[in-house]
């Protein structure tokens, strides 16, 4: 057992009203890439927080290198050789790469030495990064490199990575995996959290599967199928979304020469966006986060207005209309950020229904809200989309991410939109719920509505969209039929190369 690095025995952690982890035991060996799998709320983050010293377990023990390991803080964990790359980066936009890294270190070296070691580490692991660049100008992939290098500078024995590929293009994922394999060869253990089961099959040696806070299974990912792992996570089998052949109608929404200017210095401007959307069609828009997705949704939903002719609906210019006017004529939308944008966390589900459905569902008459009708419509959403909640008076913020997402999607779909624009429909949603949301979007298109799905999940886009394009630095790539699209081609579209090829070729 000399290979064993971290041994976890019977870790239990309860919060008021929920047991986040119950008697979880597993071990991680040196040079092993160990996947941690589970639905949202299965207890993955609590578990890694305990390993990283952010949360103290109620009971259970850990040994690291054979010694007792009970980190009281992330500092303790780091000095024990545990490092973590978080899903959400904690970087300061206005500071340089080196300054950001220095801020995260316990005793940072002189700036020049630090810059030198950053260059060394970035070369050694094939992660090109210039220490003097301002973080605000970096892409999401480059920002992740900052976080990884920050960890690597501490020579970790165990590197924890939380959903590292959710912000990367396929090419960037390849680079990351090369780095991780190199680390593995050097004997570093990696605890890898992801929803992307194919990636886990390609990268990980072992997978521990959590469900409702308990370890339910272990498997060797390479020897099983993604579907098998998904079913182990959910604890049941579920149906894949079914595509039926549907007829595509006339153009219903057309966008011509749409450009916007970013409101804040680190925002993205949209440049000369063109596309046409036909009735019954699902258009998938891919791209790495931060390339104009939020801006595109805002300008299509009406939160940001444009030239009237830039967007036309059934031949009529609507670019100057606000969100409510667009909802009235049938253009509905659901933004990516659930809490605070699509829904108000402190308000009840019933009240959140009013946010977008007030006019189209006539929940408001003569300025007064009809709470009875609102309550009924909210109950419809909850029933139809299987939202798990005690009732319509529950604050939106107390729902789990997946349940709130079902509510937000349901609120728009049940208003019978003619065009639905949706950003990240299944982000942070478990596999079964994601499948049911995709099915609902397909059903909506089958009824003749048009759907624009903006997503960073390529599998999702290829599964449900009829045509595919990608956003890169606020520009839209050419639009191609999704069927038969190669991953390489998609990567080029996401990287903006397909456009450049178009521009240079006569």
């Amino acid at each position, binding site marked *: 057992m000399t290979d064993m690095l971290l041994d976890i025995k019977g870790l239990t952690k309860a919060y008021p009203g929920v047991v986040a982890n119950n008697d979880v035991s597993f071990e991680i060996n040196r040079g092993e890439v160990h996947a941690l799998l589970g639905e949202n709320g299965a207890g993955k983050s609590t578990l890694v927080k305990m390993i990283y010293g952010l949360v103290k377990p109620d009971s259970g023990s850990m040994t690291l290198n054979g010694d007792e390991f009970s980190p009281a803080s992330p500092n303790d964990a780091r000095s024990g050789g545990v490092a973590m790359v978080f899903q959400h980066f904690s970087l300061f936009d206005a500071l340089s790469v080196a300054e950001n890294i220095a801020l995260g270190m316990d005793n940072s070296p002189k700036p020049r030495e630090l810059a030198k070691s950053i260059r060394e580490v970035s070369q050694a692991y094939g992660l090109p990064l210039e220490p003097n660049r301002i973080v605000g100008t970096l892409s999401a992939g480059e920002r992740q490199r900052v976080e990884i290098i920050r960890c690597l500078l501490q020579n970790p024995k165990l590197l924890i990575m939380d959903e590292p590929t959710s912000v990367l293009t396929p090419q960037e994922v390849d680079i990351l995996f090369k780095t991780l394999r190199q680390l593995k060869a050097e004997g570093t253990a990696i605890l890898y959290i992801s929803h992307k089961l194919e990636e886990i099959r390609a990268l990980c040696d072992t997978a521990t599967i959590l469900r409702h806070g308990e370890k339910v299974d272990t498997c060797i990912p390479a020897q099983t199928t993604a579907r098998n792992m998904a079913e182990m996570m959910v604890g049941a089998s579920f149906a894949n979304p079914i595509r039926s052949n549907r007829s595509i109608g006339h153009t219903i929404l057309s966008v011509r020469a749409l450009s916007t200017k970013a409101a804040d210095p680190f925002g993205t401007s949209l440049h000369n966006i063109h596309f046409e959307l036909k009735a019954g069609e699902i258009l998938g828009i891919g791209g790495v986060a931060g390339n104009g997705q939020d801006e595109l949704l805002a300008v299509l939903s*009406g939160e940001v207005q444009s030239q009237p002719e830039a967007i036309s609906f059934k031949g009529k210019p609507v670019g100057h209309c606000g*969100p*409510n006017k667009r909802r009235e004529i049938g253009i509905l939308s659901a933004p990516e*950020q659930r809490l605070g944008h699509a829904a*108000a966390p402190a*308000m009840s589900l019933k*009240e959140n229904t009013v946010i977008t459905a*007030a006019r189209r569902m006539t929940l408001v008459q003569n300025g007064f809200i009809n709470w009875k009708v609102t309550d009924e419509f909210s109950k419809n959403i909850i029933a139809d989309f299987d939202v798990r909640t005690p009732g319509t008076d529950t604050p939106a913020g107390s729902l789990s991410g997946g349940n709130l997402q079902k509510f937000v999607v349901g609120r728009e779909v049940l208003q019978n939109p003619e065009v639905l624009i949706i950003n990240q429909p299944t982000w942070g949603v478990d596999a079964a719920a994601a499948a049911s949301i995709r099915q609902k979007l397909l059903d909506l298109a089958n009824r003749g509505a048009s759907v624009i799905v903006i997503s960073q999940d390529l599998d999702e886009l290829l599964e449900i969209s009829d045509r595919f394009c990608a956003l890169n630095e606020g520009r839209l790539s050419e639009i191609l039929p999704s069927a038969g699209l190669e991953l390489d081609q998609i990567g080029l579209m996401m990287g903006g190369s397909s456009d450049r090829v178009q521009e240079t070729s006569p």
Partner: protein
Amino acid sequence: MIRFEKRLSPSRATTIITPIIAVILTMIAGGIMFALLGKPPLEAIRIIFWDPLFDPTFASYSRPQLLVKAGPLILIAIGLSIGFKAGIWNIGAEGQYIMGAIFGAAAALAFFPAESALIFPLMVISGALGGWLWAMIPAILRAKFKTNEILVSLMLVYVAESILASVAQGLLKNPDGYGFPGSRNLQQYPSAFNAEVIANSGMHWGVISAFMAVIFTYVMMTRHIRGFEVRLLGEAPKAAQFAGVSTTRLTIFCLGFSGALAGLAGMFEVSGPAGQITIDFNSGYGFTAIIVAFLGRLHPVGILMAGLLMALTYIGGELAQLMLGLPGASIQLFQGMLLLFLLATDVFTNYRIRIGVAH
């Protein structure tokens, strides 16, 4: 170890209980302070909280005074609470109160000495208009130039005070006043006098308006889409934008509404309890109302209670100064304690205390 732990959802019971606990804590801490000043603590507390309402000697004077003082506080605080809910901070109610008084008094004095049943309604409209116009300055500056409404509305208080001093000595000065600054006394002008509706109750039209404002606001905030938009803007500005709420229009509405109510309060004050425009006509109602709005948790019924409580500490405090010779500063300190404890106990609405080892 004692730690705060966030509640899953705000506790409704605590929302109601914490103000009561805060009052009790104020009594204890205030009592200690009074004792340290060498005054009998229990008697001082009794004089502040009990005697103004129930002592046979004082109650006949104090009870009407309670409504007279609480009326403007509630009226102004109700207006402010709407903006505060939406995250629009009108700090200048004092200035809007002054402008309402000037506009209301000017409307009356323009017709002096003609008598007509139309004069008082005209004064009501002018008073509201005066406060509304004064609040439109920060509103439009914010909407057009993104200025900070906190600073602009606050600065305009001092401008309004200067205008008040100027009109009291010039434009509205009583021609028969032997050169003294100050306008004619509206209490002696029957068409303009905001007399008590029920004799010796303190219940003048301003108090009735305050009660009506409480009901109106309650209905608007719970049932009307405008109230919903106000709450949404305060809770989640991006969600409000997504809901198609125009921040500009709502800013103008909230500032205008609070300005109009503050103006009304000033107009009812000048035509009733105060009687005339004088240099020092304003007495800080506009600022105290900010405290009242938060004491009442920005809820209409809460503000009603908070306004009455605040008025009680004023009247009781005056009484305690008179009866026990307590220094005025100690009464202000006592009121400060009340606010401190209310805000401190507010933490328990969203957090609970846990005693034990950290998990």
